[in-house]
């Protein structure tokens, strides 16, 4: 009983921290983009504008939560919840530190992939329920994009599984005590990162919500709290992909000595995640959005063969005993 209570407390704490962090990311992103574009960025609310997200939250809560009369009300309401919940569920399998982590699922990696696949429902249903052209086009793109990129996302991490011999994320981290997997799985990492960006539909792969073409894509008709959920989902998934990258390729909370003793493992983990988040923001600032056909052909024609090649070479080396 006490175990369950402790677990519940842990879950609550993690969610209670994750959501503000995701919200803070909005401010971090705007501020960083500002700096990189030689602007100042939001700096008015609180010191350095740190409370900007709070202000945004208050504003968005104050907005009319409008459901278009032409929409499918129930689906319209459920869609954003699916998105946010799927991402939050994924965090259950992330090992934050040697002692922190909701669940040590044996199939943790598969669970993550499953949740990522489920989140496409959020986008498709939102687009469908909105009953509007932009939203539908956005969700069609999202569906195609997710389906395409999931394929090699799964394949790219198979190298990691091959080398560590486990789907359990905590074991994967522990397997990297002698060296991070980035050394051997560099190609796998790149492919995973690209697929991850596409999964969280961030720039330059934000075609489902391409503002210049589709107004706001699948969430064109959304406002108020429901829109906030989509927003939250996006930033959570940024954090999630970062966390997964760290866990799979950068040794999770592990650090080589003597660095490891300087900070507690959790902070190392968070620091690594932050670096990835910054990288995501930098991508958004610097790269233009490709055309949709370019996106798909890039996925199927280059990424998928590369992922297969990576798996093949890893398997061959493994068999050949290169990794010992």
């Amino acid at each position, binding site marked *: 009983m006490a175990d369950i209570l402790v677990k519940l407390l842990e879950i609550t704490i993690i969610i209670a921290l994750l959501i503000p962090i995701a919200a803070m990311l909005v401010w971090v992103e705007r501020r960083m983009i500002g*700096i*990189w574009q*030689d*602007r*100042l960025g939001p700096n008015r609310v609180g010191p350095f504008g740190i409370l900007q997200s709070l202000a945004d939250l208050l504003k968005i809560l104050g907005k009319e939560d409008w459901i278009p009369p032409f929409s499918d009300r129930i689906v319209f309401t459920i869609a954003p919840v699916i998105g946010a919940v799927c991402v939050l569920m994924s965090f259950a399998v992330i090992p934050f530190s040697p002692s922190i982590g909701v669940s040590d699922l044996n199939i943790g990696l598969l669970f993550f992939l499953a949740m990522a696949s489920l989140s496409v429902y959020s986008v498709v249903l939102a687009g469908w329920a909105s009953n509007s052209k932009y939203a539908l086009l956005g969700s069609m793109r999202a569906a195609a994009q997710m389906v395409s990129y999931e394929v090699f996302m799964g394949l790219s991490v198979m190298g990691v599984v091959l080398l560590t011999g486990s789907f359990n994320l905590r074991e994967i981290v522990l397997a990297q005590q002698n060296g991070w997997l980035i050394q051997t799985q560099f190609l796998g990492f790149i492919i995973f990162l690209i697929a991850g960006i596409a999964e969280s539909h961030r720039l330059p792969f934000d075609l489902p919500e391409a503002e210049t073409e589709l107004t706001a894509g699948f969430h064109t008709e959304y406002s108020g709290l429901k829109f906030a959920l989509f927003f939250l989902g996006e930033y959570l998934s940024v954090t999630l992909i970062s966390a997964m990258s760290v866990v799979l390729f950068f040794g999770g909370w592990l650090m080589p000595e003597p660095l490891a003793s300087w900070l507690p493992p959790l902070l190392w983990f968070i620091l690594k995640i932050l670096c990835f988040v910054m990288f995501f923001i930098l991508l958004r600032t610097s790269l233009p959005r490709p055309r949709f056909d370019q996106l798909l052909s890039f996925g199927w024609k*280059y990424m998928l063969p590369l992922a297969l090649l990576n798996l093949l070479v890893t398997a061959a080396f493994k068999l050949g005993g290169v990794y010992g």
Partner: protein
Amino acid sequence: MGKFSKQSTVSAAFDMIFSQLRTMALVLKHTFTKADTVEYPEQKPYLAPRYRGRIVLTRDPDGEERCVACNLCAAACPVDCIALQQTVDDDGRKRADFFRINFSRCIFCGFCEEACPTYAIQLTPDIELAEYDRQNLVYEKEHLLINGVGKYHDYSFYRHSGIAVDINGERKAKGDAQQEKPPIDIKGLMP
């Protein structure tokens, strides 16, 4: 993708990747450059004298209204936000009886200034025009007219024009303008 046919696919792919990375590096470098923007209300940005902001009506060096209400600004205005009516005063000068600019529609294109033959209408580097009530964006002549010459210090239309007007309370009669000969005595017998 036409690039690929010319170069080898691999080197093209590397070019592409390098290009993206270079872009990111360039952007990253800007972490250390100073922001171009300023914290606006506390810190005023520099606006050049020829910045196209709030429109004013200026006066000539003698302190008289420059505007002769010729209607050219209104004709040039692409959004038709200027309305005016000419009137002739006892001193011979033509002035605007009313001169109205609807700033809620003005696009600050500066065509009016370009069209103005007397340098009367000028755009100034003042951009703080916001109002809570749109109606307050309709400026009448008393709001537009300033006590100064604006960007052009010496020009006085009526010193060039051939019509007779009062300048500084004195009559500028025929032949008194710049580059004018005294009026011809038509009853004179000289050939």
